[in-house]
């Protein structure tokens, strides 16, 4: 591979690029190259996350990587005829140097610094771009030094709960036990989020490195990645990456000759949203129904098989290597208030330029939706935005100038969550969305606590009554009371946060709940 002299062409193969036909594109390019006896070197990189340009092909030139996109299957013949593997500025799909595309250039990619650049399974490419630098540092530090660095960095759980990662690690470090565990929560079930998937598919060694550092920090020798079944490509990439990392002594019983041990196993979920909740996830890993546990005891003290366990989201763990290699202050200097570092925002739904935007905390939704996102894909006015997954509030336009910061969002009864941002145009009926939130909760509730299990079903019924014009005032009051009960009486965020989208829809878009609105029946059936 190193002796290769022909032009290099990068064709992404993450789930989204594949969903737009990138495999077929790669095959066609290879075929045409073979026919013309062109010595093209095709690299299957991850995706840069500029998804509206996928399949986005990059070619290596003297002045760096040049992008073209979207190069769909239909465009391949023309792409090859125009000799695009050389820089062809006149080609209609020419985008210029990749790093100069404003969408990418205006980001602050720390956690995603390698994503889309390298072949995800090429460990030498990973190492060449600072890969395992954090692990090398961690091997020189004491466990307490590692934990202190993470604490000082201000990193908070990126899965949504935003609990300080260092404090969680400290608890596990301080709890004596023969066996401790690192559990990576890769049950990324929130609609509008795909950052975890991107890390796992496009830079899996980064997650492996982060988990290994966590293991060294708290004294855990076994790690589990609890991955959702809906991500078959991520599963394949992770399993391959673990094998490669083990063969290269980055995992195993003698990590880089240090005599320290750490192993990782991938475990698959089975289509239960609730297993993204950390205690339900632990139950599931133990081979049980994904029933939420009451807390306390905290998983950090009584976690997997009752042993001290770090449960962290993919992005939290994947942010650790750069914190170790560059230092706590480097990371902490990004962000605002108590939200330090960066968050990979994910633009989704009805948005023109959908994709991953990693930025320091603090930009406004408006800047993401318009400067990056370019407004709706349908071209209609944007009406509502749901931030933070199915348990996040719907925000109307007047709230889009609030800074994206954990505390600022809590102040308006909303959540940043995992950074997913789903845009809706003005054809959306917010009563349908509110109803769906309750319906989703009913489908996915583990059933352990009553407010969630029964409240969600009653919630669907009450919303139907309001929309049908039955005793609107009394039923609206009842819905509000029900939501209060769910918020305060549920065991976990499933029942405790489902009221957020419901109440925000009712509060900001009351006109949609009127019985005079004509409704499609398609979304209103139970499954």
């Amino acid at each position, binding site marked *: 591979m190193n002796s290769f002299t022909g032009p290099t062409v990068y064709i992404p193969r993450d789930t*989204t690029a594949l969903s*737009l036909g990138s495999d077929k594109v790669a095959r066609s390019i290879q075929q045409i190259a073979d026919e013309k006896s062109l010595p093209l070197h095709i690299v299957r990189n991850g995706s840069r996350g500029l998804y509206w340009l996928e399949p986005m092909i990059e070619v290596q030139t003297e002045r760096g990587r040049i992008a073209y996109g979207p190069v769909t299957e239909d465009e391949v013949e023309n792409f090859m005829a125009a000799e695009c593997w050389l820089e062809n500025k006149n080609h209609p799909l020419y985008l210029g140097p990749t790093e100069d595309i404003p969408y990418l250039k205006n980001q602050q990619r720390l956690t995603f610094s390698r994503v889309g650049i390298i072949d995800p399974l090429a460990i030498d490419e990973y190492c060449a771009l600072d890969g395992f630098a954090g692990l090398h540092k961690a091997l020189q530090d004491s466990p307490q030094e590692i934990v202190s660095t993470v604490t000082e960095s201000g990193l908070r759980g990126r899965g949504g709960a935003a609990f300080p990662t260092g404090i969680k690690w400290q608890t596990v470090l301080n709890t004596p036990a023969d066996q401790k565990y690192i559990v990576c929560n890769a049950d990324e079930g929130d609609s509008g989020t795909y950052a975890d998937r991107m890390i796992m598919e496009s830079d899996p060694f980064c997650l492996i490195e982060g988990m290994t550092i966590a293991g060294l920090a708290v004294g855990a020798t076994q790690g589990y990645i609890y991955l959702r079944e809906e991500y078959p490509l991520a599963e394949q990439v992770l399993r391959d990456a673990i094998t490669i990392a083990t063969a290269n002594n980055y995992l195993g019983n003698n990590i880089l000759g240090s005599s320290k041990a750490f192993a990782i196993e991938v475990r*698959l979920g089975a289509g239960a949203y609730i297993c993204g909740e950390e205690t339900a996830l632990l139950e599931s890993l133990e081979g049980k129904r994904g029933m939420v546990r009451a807390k306390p005891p905290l998983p950090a003290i009584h976690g997997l098989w009752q042993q001290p366990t770090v449960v962290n989201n993919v992005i939290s763990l994947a942010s650790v290597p750069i914190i170790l290699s560059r230092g706590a202050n480097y990371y902490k200097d990004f962000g605002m208030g108590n939200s330090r570092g960066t968050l990979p925002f994910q633009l989704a739904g*009805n948005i023109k330029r959908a994709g991953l935007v990693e930025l320091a905390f603090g930009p406004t939704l408006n800047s993401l939706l318009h400067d990056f996102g370019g407004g709706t894909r349908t071209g209609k006015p944007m009406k509502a935005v*749901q931030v933070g997954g199915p348990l996040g509030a719907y925000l109307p336009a007047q709230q889009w100038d609030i800074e994206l910061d954990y505390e600022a969002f809590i102040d308006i009864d909303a959540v940043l969550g995992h950074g997913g941002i789903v845009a809706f145009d003005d054809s959306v009926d917010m009563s349908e*969305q509110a109803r769906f939130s309750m319906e989703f909760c009913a*489908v996915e509730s583990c059933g352990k606590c009553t407010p969630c299990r029964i409240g969600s079903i009653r919630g669907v019924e009450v919303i139907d009554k309001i929309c049908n014009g039955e005793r609107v005032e009394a039923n609206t009051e009842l819905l509000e009371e029900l939501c209060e009960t769910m918020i305060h009486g549920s065991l976990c965020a499933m029942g405790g946060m489902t009221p957020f989208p419901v109440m925000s829809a009712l509060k900001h878009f009351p006109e949609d709940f009127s019985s005079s609105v004509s409704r499609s029946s398609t979304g209103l059936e139970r499954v």
Partner: protein
Amino acid sequence: MTTAINLSIRQVEVVTNIVNTMQALPGALLPILHAVQDKLGYIPPASLPLVAEGLNLSRAEVHGVVSFYHYFRSTPAGNHTIQICRAESCQAMGARALESHAKKTLNIDYQQTTADGDITLEPVYCLGNCACSPAIRIGDDVHGHVDTDKFDQLVSTLRTHVVEVK
């Protein structure tokens, strides 16, 4: 005593092998159920006693786990399983219209299989393809920007493919 009525000899072999190979894993039940479904296409209710005995669990406990998870199925699926994403990002791009189109053209509801045993339709809550909504999954392949035309095209490819195989 294990009774495995209604299982074929091959099914008994497959399940027994899986249980024997994996029973020592910590938290082995989900990996075992995945392996059974991967091999047999579903988890036959009659196989539960074999799994239960191998893990020293009650049959009720195993049934409780199988029935808790949406992904595990107790009956065989069609030749192809199509999952349509029902989550918010896809809703914002027309998933409601897509799912009603799918049900109408295939003439089945969710969790049902076409009369010819060819296609099973299932709902799914997010495929992580939210930048290209609406999304569907056929087998392990995810498709993005799926409107009704693209859906029909994909279905007709599946149907043609089956004829070729036969």
